[in-house]
């Protein structure tokens, strides 16, 4: 064994020491499932009458949209949940192993790194390569293929989507198809497998380290509570060499020869510090990225160094340092593996269900929809209140106008008939006004005058009478004799009373005033009864519906938050 090979050996030894830390979170997962199903049940229990919905088109559509969205989101959850179960199956197949997944962009040097690790094992055991075909069937293979590469010869640009890897002692190394390639489903598959990882290695190519889309991908991994090592791969380049006497060194064909070398340390340092700074910015206080250091490495120069026994080339490839840092990670394999199922479940709840990192995800979508519905309802109520107030003003104006029109004609003889006529006009006009205002909210509405007759003080009560005051005087008509007799108490004196009626006009103005006041009260109360009907029959149920929806969401949210707290606690205990 060369010193270079010996340099790698501690890593391979550590792989033999990996002991399983497999944890089952089935119970907790079932609890979560129950929560989702309970919510689904509650959502389905909200029954909305078709008639009710059709009363107001805008609101009806919005309610239906919210209900539809709820169904959709829940279906999504169930689907994601089942996907999570599938990944769990994958994990349990590898439950004795520490699952390292290499995940990154197309052409980031994923497969080369995996092949390097598998190929340069210094110990007895051989790496066992495998691959899952499209149907999910496992098969043995000889090495990791460049799965990013479209097989161009067969002109098949849609290359087979697959996951490959190898097992080496306690390590299961999983290679994923690259992100951002010509075939987007490759990236999707890789994303799905991420959940199965105990640990992630994220390579970024030295040819353009950490592009913007890679930064986004890293952010997402951090949001998923993943433990990650980032490395800059392919840190090699070529050079021409000149012979001492002049002229280029040439290959067997006489072409100018190209020698593969490591990139200059200055170059690598500038890349490393750039990537470190970017990561610092996106990771903020996250601990996920602190586990391993960042190196710019070249599996290619390391391999050439090993093969050609060029120790300098090998050491400068930074692969030894990379091995060291991964060895440190593997020393913690057991506790990492124990924590992962909890992290996954927590991440699932936080990201897919609670939408912690996006307003467009999970429960947030439903909340937004419901809140918007709430706004529309509030707006409808506001409009309704306004219409009601306006209608009350309209009623008083209507009464003023109509009474004014007739007031000249009214006298004590025709009062009853005219008041009756006024009542008829008022009933018709006011009904129309109230109806019109309510129709702005509801599709169909007929003003009800049911209570009218029984509450109405009949026109007869408003009788116009002349005001007559009678003046009187009295004078004595007794004769002198009678006066004398009366002084002895024998007879009464006699008197005559004179009276005259003085006409004080009539009470017409007072009667009209009373009539107006009475009708104002009467019609306002009638109108209010009609408005109350709308409140009871439409607005209140609408509020109830909204509150029910809101409450369901709040309940689910608090349950989910509770569950994540619990999961965090268990995780802490397990990995203490």
């Amino acid at each position, binding site marked *: 064994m060369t010193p270079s090979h010996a340099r790698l050996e501690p890593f391979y030894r550590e792989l033999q020491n990996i002991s399983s830390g497999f944890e089952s979170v089935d119970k907790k997962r079932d609890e979560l499932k129950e929560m989702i199903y309970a919510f689904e049940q509650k959502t389905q229990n909200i029954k909305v009458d078709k008639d009710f919905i059709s009363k107001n088109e805008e609101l009806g559509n919005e309610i239906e949209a919210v209900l539809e969205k709820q169904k959709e989101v829940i279906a999504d959850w169930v689907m994601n949940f089942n996907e999570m179960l599938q990944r769990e199956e994958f994990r349990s197949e590898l439950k004795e192993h520490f699952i390292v997944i290499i995940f990154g962009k197309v052409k980031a040097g994923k497969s080369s790194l995996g092949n390097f690790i598998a190929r340069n094992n210094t110990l007895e055991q051989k790496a066992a390569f495998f691959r899952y075909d499209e149907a999910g069937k496992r098969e043995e293979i000889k090495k990791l293929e460049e799965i990013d590469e479209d097989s*161009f010869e067969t002109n098949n640009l849609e290359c087979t989507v697959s996951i490959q890897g190898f097992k080496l002692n306690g390590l299961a190394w999983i290679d994923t198809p690259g992100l951002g390639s010509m075939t987007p489903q490759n990236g999707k598959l890789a994303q799905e497998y991420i959940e199965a990882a105990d640990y992630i290695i994220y390579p970024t190519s030295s040819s353009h380290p950490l592009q913007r889309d890679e930064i986004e991908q890293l952010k997402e991994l951090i949001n998923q509570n993943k433990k990650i090592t980032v490395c800059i791969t392919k840190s090699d*380049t070529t050079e*021409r060499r000149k012979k001492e006497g002049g002229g280029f060194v040439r290959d067997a064909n006489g*072409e100018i020869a190209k020698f593969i070398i490591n990139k200059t340390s200055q170059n690598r340092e500038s890349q490393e510090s750039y990537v470190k700074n970017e990561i610092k910015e996106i990771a903020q206080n996250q601990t996920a990225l602190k586990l391993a250091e960042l190196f710019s490495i070249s599996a290619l120069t390391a391999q050439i160094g090993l093969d050609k026994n060029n120790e300098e080339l090998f050491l400068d490839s930074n692969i030894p340092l990379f091995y060291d840092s991964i060895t440190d990670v593997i020393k913690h394999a057991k506790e990492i593996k124990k924590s992962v199922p909890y992290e996954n479940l927590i991440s699932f709840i936080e990201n897919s269900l609670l939408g912690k990192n996006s307003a467009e995800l999970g429960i947030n979508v439903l909340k937004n929809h419901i809140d918007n519905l709430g706004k529309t309802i509030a707006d409808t109520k506001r409009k309704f209140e306004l219409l009601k*107030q*306006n209608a009350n*003003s309209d009623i008083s104006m209507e009464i003023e106008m109509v009474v004014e029109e007739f007031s000249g004609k009214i006298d004590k003889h025709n009062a009853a008939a005219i008041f009756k006529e006024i009542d008829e006009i008022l009933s018709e006009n006011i009904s129309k006004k109230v109806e019109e205002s309510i129709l702005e909210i509801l599709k169909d509405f007929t003003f009800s005058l049911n209570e009218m007759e029984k509450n109405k003080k009949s026109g007869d009560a408003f009788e116009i009478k002349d005001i007559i005051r009678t*003046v009187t*005087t009295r004078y004595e008509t007794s004769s002198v004799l009678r006066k004398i007799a009366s002084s002895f108490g024998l007879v009464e004196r006699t008197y005559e009373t004179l009276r005259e009626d003085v006409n004080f006009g009539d009470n017409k103005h007072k009667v009209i005033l009373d009539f107006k*006041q009475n009708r104002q009260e009467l019609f306002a109360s009638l109108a209010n009864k009609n408005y109350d009907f709308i409140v009871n029959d439409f607005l209140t149920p609408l509020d109830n519906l909204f509150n029910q929806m809101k409450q369901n969401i709040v309940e689910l949210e608090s349950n989910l938050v509770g569950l994540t707290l619990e999961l965090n606690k268990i995780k802490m205990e397990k990995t203490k």
Partner: protein
Amino acid sequence: MIVDKESYISLKNEIISLSKEYISQEELKNFSDHIENKVASFKPTLMVYGVYNAGKSTLLNAIFGVDEMSQTGDAPETAEVHPFEYNGYTIYDTPGINAPIKHEEVTIEHLKKTELVLFVMSNDGSFEERYVYEKIGDIIKDEKPVLIVLNNKKGIDINSSVADEEINKINAHLSKICDEVGIKEAEKKVKIVYVDAKTALDGKLENEDELIQSSNILLLESEIEKLLGESSGTNVKNALDRFIIEFILRTITNIDGKIDRPQEKLTQELLTYLEKLKQKTESELKNMALESVAIITNSLVEKLLAKENTSITPMIEKVIGEINESVNQKLESVKNEIRSKIGTFESAMQRLSIDVSDMKSKNSNVTENSERMPDSDSSGTAVAVGTAVANFIPPTLVIPTPLGPIPVKPVVQFALTVYVIFAGSNEAKTRAEAELEEKRRHHLAAKNRGEEFGFKYKQNLLKNVDANILNLFDSIIKQYIDFSKSICEQNDSLLQTKAKLQDILNSLK
């Protein structure tokens, strides 16, 4: 279709006058300058565009054969657009796409102006990435000629079959992406040149002809010459039209953001409400006034008939006090209603206003005034309301003065005279008849006095009701009418400007 330069300038001026309120000064200047420059030279420019680190800067250095003409580095560096003169043309180096630094806008802005594009990708990664082809597809869609440079960063033999395969692959990828967005035969619209920029630069610097030859840089240079030479006024016109279209579309988006229908509607709602409340309050107050008139008239007649002259003034004062109080209460409650309605209105407006600062300045006038209303309880404004109330039938002043002293005495005097006339007569009946007549006259006089007083009282009350209604409603309604007008006018002018810009768009398309 615009052909001559003059019409470009006048078109430019028209667009600027239409959009100047909706576009930043800087953007306007940029727009104006670019058109003027283009019209002056009518020469195409070439833009070096591509993935960061694909070797754009190295390539430019190689073309010019200078080492540090353009900064090169292994981490993202180029952050600005750099112009280079090349055989009488201008070539622009631009920051790379998908770099994490936030300079991509600069590149995107420049892409809108340029006529020709040199798209650089490297063979060690980026040419397998989907987004690269999406970017190229966008340029093809804009009908701008593209020359793709595949830079041999991987260091393969660029005359080998591997290199040919890579070129084929790029063509296949490109046509796949372009098919998806409906561009047919994309591969026929672009030319791909495989170049080893680093080798070319080294060759030129070290004067090694073999390196220069093998790097393919000479082929690229001749392709660039051809591209520049072949490109005609049509390319310039096309790019210029697209540049203008893009600018107009941006302006229209800004205008759309400013058109405010919901605010208009809310203001109209408030106005309707205020008008109706005004009418309702007026009729309620008038009815209250008429009732008070009836009370005072009747009471006065009663008092006069009962000859309770001394209690007349206290009675009148009491009735006036009562009407004052109830009118006051009514006005207070109406004020509260207005206050709460305006509060609701303003919070609704705030929720709506997309551009808060803009809205604020328009609204400030109304807000200030309407805020004064609701705060009438506070000391400063209590004066205003207090004054309004004080104007309303001040009991000691307004009512007694125009009526003069309470007319009790004349009636009594008249009665005495009648009595004196008949005092000497022994004829009881005659005297009684005279007394009856006197009583009748007394009643009629009381009635007339009462009504006369009532009439003046009524006139006074109604005048005060009018004054109060005017005082309470008119200025606030006027303010909201003005506010509503300003929104409408603004929306109208926005719509007009938008329509004009759309006309220009249609003439360009």
